[in-house]
């Protein structure tokens, strides 16, 4: 059972100028079972990226603990793959060298790596682009490379930090389908941070709406749209009345939060 | 608008050209060059404005760092008379075709020393042991000239030496550090430093016996000499008078030291080695046919550029203003 478990996660930053303590996260508790897809939504400053960084191992919690499959998370690791908003590709390497980066770091046999790279490039729809320099790729293709680079290491959890935020609407929709397909085919646990309510609803099997000051999970949803998205067209789902209802509810919720922040600020 | 602009440019340009061509002829002031830290009796006349009074025109004195710079300034027309230009830069200037003449001898002094590092056991009697050694020499200076004369007199083959071009201060340092086995030095402070760790390859007497000496010259542009012979003559006259009036009294030394920018003690020590020949001596010994000036200039020319045509340099020596 490779579940992702967060127990009483607390994160407090001290402002170096005035010494004020900001509670970025307070008492976060949840368990993400293997193969679940969770999207996290919230206004800016609600700590969703802090949460992701903690699970990725880039930050250590002030108190509490996160563990994966019973192992305490103490630093970044191959079992938790990351996909960043801008791809964070290595522009001095061609596509295939970007994808097999993780394999090279652990000295995998080159022939084996090449097979894996070809397989994954095929899956993300980039067959034949192995020798292309990454700086010549479009934004959507760069994110495909980033996905392949992450998946080639066979991680247990995939953490995505606003992976589709910088893409145009059409590319975004294609990529959303791709994510769902990959989720289905690989059965990986996926955690996606996003600021798009639509995206969170479409992709999230579970959805957390987070609230700021202190950062906490405000409301949790279990949604059917991701399952449906595997079979139906995403555009149809968006037209669905149930979809529209939840969307409006969450939008109001976030709107109120923003209002509150503005009022207090 | 445009036309008048062009006209203005033309007018001012031609005005500038006229100004340049006329300024060259009007001797309403005389520009003289001298060295700081090089004490000479005529500095009293310089401070007292005796030159200005005697010549009837103001004399502007500009100090220079090197004799080569004096040549450059004379060529560009900024300087008319150089007092105490080194013989080496003068001869080089003549070989480059500069229109200058030597009209007098400013200072006669002992040739610059080449110091052999103490402890090597090399002196003038076994100088051939220098072969294969490293020598610091400020190339194309009077010290370089002296070095080559010493080596010729001591029958040392210069081509077997490793010659390093170093300024005197650096050469003294290298000698102290044992990086070079011999260093040829000019200048008081550096020579003193080199004397701490080395010994001159030739004594004063040996230098005199071999006829190795140094002197600084008074040089002037040919143009200035042609157009203002009476000013040149008065300049030399005042110089001669101040040389004659030199008694090395404390008051005199204090005055010279102040103008030369040196301490009284250093001035005293420096001037003790200097000789200021009278006009008569200059005419008889230096400017006579085959005199010291001509032969020294010729051998200097030979040393520096392999050009042995001394007669050419001799033509630029003109003692007539001393009479």
């Amino acid at each position: 059972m490779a579940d992702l478990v967060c127990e009483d996660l607390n994160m407090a930053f001290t402002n170096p100028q005035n010494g004020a303590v900001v509670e970025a996260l307070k008492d976060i508790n949840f368990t993400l079972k293997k193969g679940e897809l969770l999207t996290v939504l919230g206004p800016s400053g609600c700590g969703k990226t802090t949460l992701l960084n903690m699970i990725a191992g880039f930050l250590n919690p002030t108190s509490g603990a996160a563990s994966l499959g019973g192992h305490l998370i103490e630093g970044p690791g191959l079992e938790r793959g990351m996909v960043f908003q801008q791809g964070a590709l290595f522009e001095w390497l061609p596509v295939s060298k970007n994808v097999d980066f993780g394999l090279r770091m652990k000295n995998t046999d080159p022939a084996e790596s090449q097979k894996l790279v070809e397989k994954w490039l095929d899956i993300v729809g980039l067959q034949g682009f192995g020798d292309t320099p990454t700086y010549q790729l479009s934004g959507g293709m760069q994110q495909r490379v980033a996905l392949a680079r992450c998946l080639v290491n066979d991680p247990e959890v995939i953490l995505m930090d606003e992976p589709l935020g910088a893409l145009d609407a059409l590319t975004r929709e294609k990529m959303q389908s791709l994510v769902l397909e990959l989720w289905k085919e690989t059965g990986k646990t996926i955690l996606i941070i996003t600021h798009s309510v639509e995206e969170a609803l479409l992709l999230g099997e579970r959805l957390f709406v987070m609230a700021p000051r202190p950062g906490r999970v405000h409301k949790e949803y279990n949604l059917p749209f991701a399952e449906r998205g595997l079979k139906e067209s995403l555009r149809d789902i968006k037209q669905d009345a149930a979809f529209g209802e939840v969307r409006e509810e969450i939008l109001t919720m976030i709107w109120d939060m923003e209002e509150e922040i503005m009022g207090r600020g | 608008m445009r036309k008048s602009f062009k006209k203005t440019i033309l007018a001012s340009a031609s005005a500038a050209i006229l100004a340049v061509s006329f300024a060259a002829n009007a001797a309403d002031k005389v520009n003289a060059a001298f060295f700081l830290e090089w004490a000479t009796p005529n500095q009293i006349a310089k401070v007292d404005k005796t030159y200005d009074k005697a010549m009837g025109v103001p004399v502007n004195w500009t100090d220079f760092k090197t004799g080569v710079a004096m040549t450059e300034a004379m060529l560009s027309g900024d300087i008319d008379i150089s007092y105490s230009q080194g013989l080496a830069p003068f001869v080089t200037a003549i070989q480059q075709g500069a229109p200058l003449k030597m009209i007098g001898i400013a200072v006669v002094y002992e040739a610059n020393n080449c110091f052999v590092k103490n402890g090597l056991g090399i002196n003038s009697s076994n100088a051939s042991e220098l072969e294969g050694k490293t020598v610091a020499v400020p190339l194309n200076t009077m010290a370089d000239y002296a070095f080559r004369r010493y080596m010729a007199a001591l029958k040392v083959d210069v081509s077997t030496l490793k010659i390093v071009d170093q300024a005197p201060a650096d050469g003294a340092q290298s000698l102290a550090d044992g990086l070079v086995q011999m260093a040829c030095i000019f200048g008081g402070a550096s020579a003193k430093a080199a004397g701490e760790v080395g010994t001159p390859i030739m004594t004063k007497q040996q230098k005199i016996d071999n006829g190795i000496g140094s002197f600084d010259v008074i040089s002037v542009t040919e143009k200035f000499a042609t157009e203002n012979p009476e000013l040149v003559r008065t300049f030399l006259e005042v110089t001669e008078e101040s040389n004659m009036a030199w008694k090395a009294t404390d008051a005199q030394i204090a005055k010279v030291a102040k103008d030369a920018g040196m301490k009284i003690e250093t001035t005293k020590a420096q001037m003790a080695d200097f000789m200021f020949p009278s006009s008569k001596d200059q005419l008889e010994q230096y400017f006579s046919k085959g005199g010291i000036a001509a032969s020294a200039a010729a051998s200097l020319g030979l040393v520096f550029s392999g050009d042995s045509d001394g007669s050419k340099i001799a033509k630029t020596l003109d003692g007539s203003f001393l009479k």
Partner: protein
Amino acid sequence: MVEWFSDNRANLAAVIVLFLVAMLIWSFYVGRKQAALTAKDEVFGDPQRTRGGWYWSVCGVATLLLVWFYFSWGMGRAYFPNAANEMCQVAKLEEVVSPIKAALPIGSRYYKSTLLVARNSTQLDAVQGELPVDAFTADEQAELNELIGKVRSLMVNASDPKNLSREATGKLDQLVFKLNALSTELRAGSANLSPTAKALAQPKWGTTHIEISILPITARGVLFDNVATKAKEVATLFVKIRNHPPANVSVITDVKARISAFKAVNEIGKFDERKTRTRAAYIKSVERIFRRLDDGTIFPANSLDGVNSAIAGLDAARDHARGNLGTIQSILFPGQGVVKSRTQCTEQGSARWLPKPTDVVATFLRLSNPDIDGGGGYKGIPLLWWKWLPVADTVGFLVPDWIADIWPGEYAKHGSDATITPNFKDKLLNFARGKVYLGVIPVLDGHLWDSVFRVLVALGLGIFLGVPLGLFMGVSRFFKSFFDPLIELYRPVPPLAWAPLILTIFGITDDGKIFLLFMVAFAIMVISARTGSSGTQLSKIRASHSLGASDRQIMWNVILPNALPEILTGIRIAIGVCWGTLVAAEILAGTTGVGFIENIARTVSDYELIWVTILIMGLLGLMFDLIMRWVIEKTIPWRGKG
């Protein structure tokens, strides 16, 4: 071959100049055409717009070379190879008549006599005003005033035309006649004249260290040379003419007597020391002016009018005889023309310090000739060549001598039969000192190589040590804070400021010079590597952490390639600065190198050599920069596209 080029450099220059003009016109034409084609779709300030346009490079280079050819007189020499010699002959005439001209309005606005009268009057007034009343008695003061009045009367007498002696008038008339004869000779032309064989055998303009040959090589030149020779006699006559009005004879005797009397009174010693000195100085100042006035150099103003107009006539005749030479000179020879000094003719103006391009090439070829005995190289060392290096030298350098010292046993001593049998310890010492034969290898040699070697080694060390330090400083708080004060303190110090220390620490061999250059390169490399590494995006580092990379792997595989653009730019800057520091470095203890050549050339004002070294350094710098640009293009194509 080289000889042929050297002798025909003027003709070659003529061809080159024509070619350059053609290139200039052609490239300008192409450039304008291209500009017209693309003007519509371009926006001013668009960086893409600066790409291409090689024809403008051709245009720029051609312009530069033509300007060089023009101001160095290279263009003039190319088409009028005899012009300088002819100008020299004209300059000879100018030189010999200059003493006459200097005394006349034609040469210096005023008559010399007018200037002398003005100057001496002012001085007499000043002397009169400064009369020290406490040093002289009232009687003496009166007498001194009278004495000064008498001295003044010398000028008055000399300025009166009535007093001009018949002898002087006669001499002046004779002078005018001779000058007019010279004018006539000049106007008669050079039809029957021809240069001597000796003159024609002289080396061509600029081919030897004598810039311009002095004997006339054209008929026109011979004419001027002849006239100049005769004019010299005339000038000698002129300088000797004196105006001694009879009235002055008695005055001179009187003044002399009075001055002697004053001196005699002074010498008795009846005055105190201070007074004696004041009196002597005052009389001296009067005597000095008197001595300038008794030599008869002042003439009545109009007496010299004849000479003045004769000289003007001579000038006109000179311009006539010069013919088209005057026009050629004013168009093709910018500056003050050729000046004849005592022994030679020299170019004046920009040509004095700007050698002709072809001469610079000739000097460069002479320097690059590896045959030292044949006059090549500089100070006994070739510019760029190779030599055999004994391997033992390197061994001797690398193996320290003390290895032999610590070997057990003693060094050999000479035996009773005066023979020496070396033991192993001796052989070891010889080995450590490189006194064995281990074969030879060819290595590069020469001034140029030495300079390049110093720059490259310094640069290599700077990169090797500076880049890792800079990379760590960009990512580690310890490295940044620990080394920051150190680097920032030494970086702003100009390289030459280290010179005195470097000499005593490293000595006179290459290592000191290399260290100086290294100091420069190191700072630049540290700064650029640091900027590069600290500019790495956090997400890239986080991504590589997630991909299982260790810290060292991230350093090598992420931070280094990410900093590569800055590092390569840093190398490019460092190369340039190193070349700039080379001259300073090679001043320390000059033995070889391009900077050494320049330093020596400076002491002898050898402008040709100075320009050769400047051009060598410029071209080498350019070459390195082009290499770096190519490397940057090849290794970091993603720059500006990431």
